[in-house]
């Protein structure tokens, strides 16, 4: 990636929209931006952070981004945009990245943000299709690595201290693309936790056990009920159905004896009893049929009884609304349209567009009723007015009253029949000798047995039906639980597999960290040799990710001076950039895809003695293909300028602008 130019508009100290072009020359790859302290060096670094990542460097805050001079000039309530536009080239494309925030002036010293920042990326080759992805630049340099390509002097000093270890290790992990492996590690842990939950849910064997027990119990109940009903094949338990059949046979036998008796009276009494019983059975069947009919009638027509009063209330309510013109008028839309298109009213008045008659008729469209609404209303009103609802309600009660009368008739007749049957029984038991009386007693007993068996048959059949349904229900629950059990095995296997994937990922992660540390160690040595003045010393990145300087021969670590710390950190940064450059060739694991990147350095020479300054100045252009140095006048003059001059493409001077005596409020640039 190469940064072609940056244009800052009313951005903190920057007034108007100065543009800085950066060197893209291979031999003169350094662009210097210099100025006294307080002229806006932090603003420069923030300009890159803002355009690329939407953040600004401390102590700056986004809320105060709008340039003070511009704010002073604006009318109260006026709105102005503040922001940065950067042109970069990457992988054969040139992009224009811009991020602007609107501000509204509240008072001479205060502005407030208006909305979110406007962000866009335009590929110059395809300007009509802006890229709206706000994280676009993170695909080139991830945010975590930003500090190693756009950095200030304080961080340079910090890296080589003990507390810089974590930062160094993280930078290595990030540049390696190991964040991918970390994401895998975290995601695998989450996946494992999910599988565990699923296994636990599927493992509720108690439920399956209980269901199977319920199934067995229900089956046992059905079996027992069926044995009651049909017997178990033994003489002791013939079953209710068989006992009922036996009783029926006994009844039939007794009746036949009486019907075939020599005595005419006995025979006639039995025939009379048969007829009465036949009639009684017929009445009971009629009773059942009538009962079914009346149930159907009630279910179908009960609504008329419920709605009859409500219908009238609703209809009256609508009518009242209509009279108050709160409902559409009774003139229909289509009728008004027909009049307008015919050009003549029904009264004969010509309807010409633009004239008042035409306009009056046209106004009716606003209140005219829609046909479907009218039709619905008319139907309801007609229904109420026609008294149909009342007729239907009356009819509903008529049918019920008829049924009641019929039921009364059935009940009276059955009562009569029972009385007659009782008389017949009494006569047969008492009036015709012992033989007839004993048959009558046998008949009565058999009928009692039959009645008892019928009741039990009804009870057990119903029980069997209920339990059969219950069994089916349990069966489907068992199938569901068994499926879960199958899932349990599946999730157990998935869990095992995820554990292994996690282990593999961890091993690979450790391998890559170690290999990269070794690579970085080599590169740091090379870069350090270029910028250090002590040939007997070498920089290295030890196994604890500490940057140290040691004696080349004895390998003994040396105590670092402030200058040496800075040199060592620069060596690390140079090594990191160099590693990123080579990473494009690697196809092992990607996250940060690597590439040729510029370095933007703020105050890189702060604590160096003249010799280190000279070496760093000479070594700096070698660190990256493009170097942007932000530096104070004091640091620039002398050693740094002399040693860097031949690689410098252009020098931009920042100095305080001057307006109305407020000379510290903005920065001017000149080449």
């Amino acid at each position: 990636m190469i940064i072609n130019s940056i244009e800052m508009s009313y951005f903190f100290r920057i007034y108007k929209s100065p543009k800085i072009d950066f060197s893209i020359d291979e031999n003169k790859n350094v662009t210097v931006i210099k100025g006294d302290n307080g002229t806006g060096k932090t603003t420069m670094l923030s300009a890159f952070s803002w355009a690329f990542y939407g953040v600004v460097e401390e102590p700056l805050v986004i809320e105060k981004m709008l340039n003070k001079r511009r704010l002073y000039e604006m009318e109260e309530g006026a709105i102005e945009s503040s922001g940065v536009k950067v042109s970069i080239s990457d992988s054969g494309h040139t992009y224009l990245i811009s991020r602007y925030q609107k501000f509204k002036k509240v008072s001479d010293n205060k502005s407030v943000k208006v909305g979110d920042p406007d962000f866009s990326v335009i590929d110059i080759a395809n300007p009509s299709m802006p890229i709206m992805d706000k994280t676009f630049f993170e695909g080139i340099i991830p945010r975590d690595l930003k500090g190693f390509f756009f950095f200030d002097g304080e961080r340079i000093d910090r890296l080589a201290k003990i507390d810089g270890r974590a930062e160094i290790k993280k930078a290595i992990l990030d540049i390696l693309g190991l964040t991918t492996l970390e994401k895998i590690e975290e995601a695998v842990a989450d996946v494992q936790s999910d599988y565990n939950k699923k296994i636990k849910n599927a493992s509720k064997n108690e439920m399956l056990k209980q269901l199977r027990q319920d199934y067995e119990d229900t089956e046992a109940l059905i079996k027992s009920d069926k044995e009651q009903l049909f017997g178990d094949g033994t003489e002791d338990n013939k079953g209710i159905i068989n006992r009922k059949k036996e009783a029926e046979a006994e009844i039939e036998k007794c009746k036949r004896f009486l019907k075939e008796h020599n005595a005419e009276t006995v025979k006639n009494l039995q025939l009379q009893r048969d007829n009465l019983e036949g009639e009684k059975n017929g009445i009971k069947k009629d009773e059942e049929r009538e009962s079914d009919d009346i149930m159907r009638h009630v279910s179908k027509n009960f609504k008329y009884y419920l709605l009859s009063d409500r219908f009238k209330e609703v209809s009256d309510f609508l009518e009242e609304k209509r009279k108050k013109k709160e409902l559409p008028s009774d003139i229909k839309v289509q009728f008004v349209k027909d009049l307008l298109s015919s050009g003549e009213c029904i009264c004969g008045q010509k309807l010409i567009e633009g004239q008042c008659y035409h306009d009056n008729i046209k106004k009716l469209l606003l209140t005219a009723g829609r046909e479907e609404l009218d039709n619905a209303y008319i139907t309801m009103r007609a229904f109420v007015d026609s008294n149909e609802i009342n007729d239907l309600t009356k009819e509903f009660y008529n049918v019920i009253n008829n049924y009641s009368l019929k039921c009364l008739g059935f009940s009276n007749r059955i009562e009569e029949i029972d009385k007659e049957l009782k008389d017949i029984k009494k006569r047969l038991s008492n009036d015709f000798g012992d033989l007839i009386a004993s048959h009558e007693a046998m008949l009565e007993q058999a009928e009692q047995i039959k009645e008892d068996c019928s009741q039990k048959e009804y009870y057990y059949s119903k029980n069997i039906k209920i339990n059969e349904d219950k069994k089916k229900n349990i069966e489907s629950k068992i199938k569901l639980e068994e499926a879960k059990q199958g899932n349990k095995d599946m999730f157990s296997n998935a869990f095992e597999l995820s554990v292994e994937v996690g282990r593999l990922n961890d091993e690979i992660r450790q391998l890559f960290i170690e290999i990269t540390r070794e690579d970085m160690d080599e590169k740091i040595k090379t870069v350090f040799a270029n910028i250090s003045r002590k040939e007997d010393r070498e920089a290295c990145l030890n196994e604890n990710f500490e940057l140290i300087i040691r004696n080349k021969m004895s390998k003994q670590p040396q105590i670092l001076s402030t200058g040496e710390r800075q040199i060592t950190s620069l060596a690390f940064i140079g090594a990191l950039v160099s590693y990123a450059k080579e990473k494009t060739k690697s196809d092992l694991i990607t996250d940060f895809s690597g590439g040729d990147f510029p370095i933007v350095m703020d105050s890189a020479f702060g604590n160096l003695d003249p010799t280190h300054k000279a070496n760093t100045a000479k070594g700096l252009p070698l660190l990256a293909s493009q170097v942007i140095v932000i530096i104070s006048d004091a640091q620039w003059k002398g050693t740094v300028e002399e040693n860097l001059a031949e690689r410098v493409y252009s020098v931009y001077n920042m100095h305080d602008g001057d307006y109305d005596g407020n000379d510290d409020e903005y920065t001017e640039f000149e080449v």
Partner: protein
Amino acid sequence: MRDKKKELNDILNKYDPAVQKVYQRVLSQEKSIKNIRKAQMKSLIDKEIMQQVQKDDN
């Protein structure tokens, strides 16, 4: 100079083919997603593992 690819393969080969397959497929698919998020990674891993498990069952 260490041979990264050989060392990587040595590690991979220590694991069951199903584990290797899941891992390699996750990595290859991850490459095609820019700035993959953790939730996406989780669903990718879950999908690959479940596919492998179901394949084994069949």
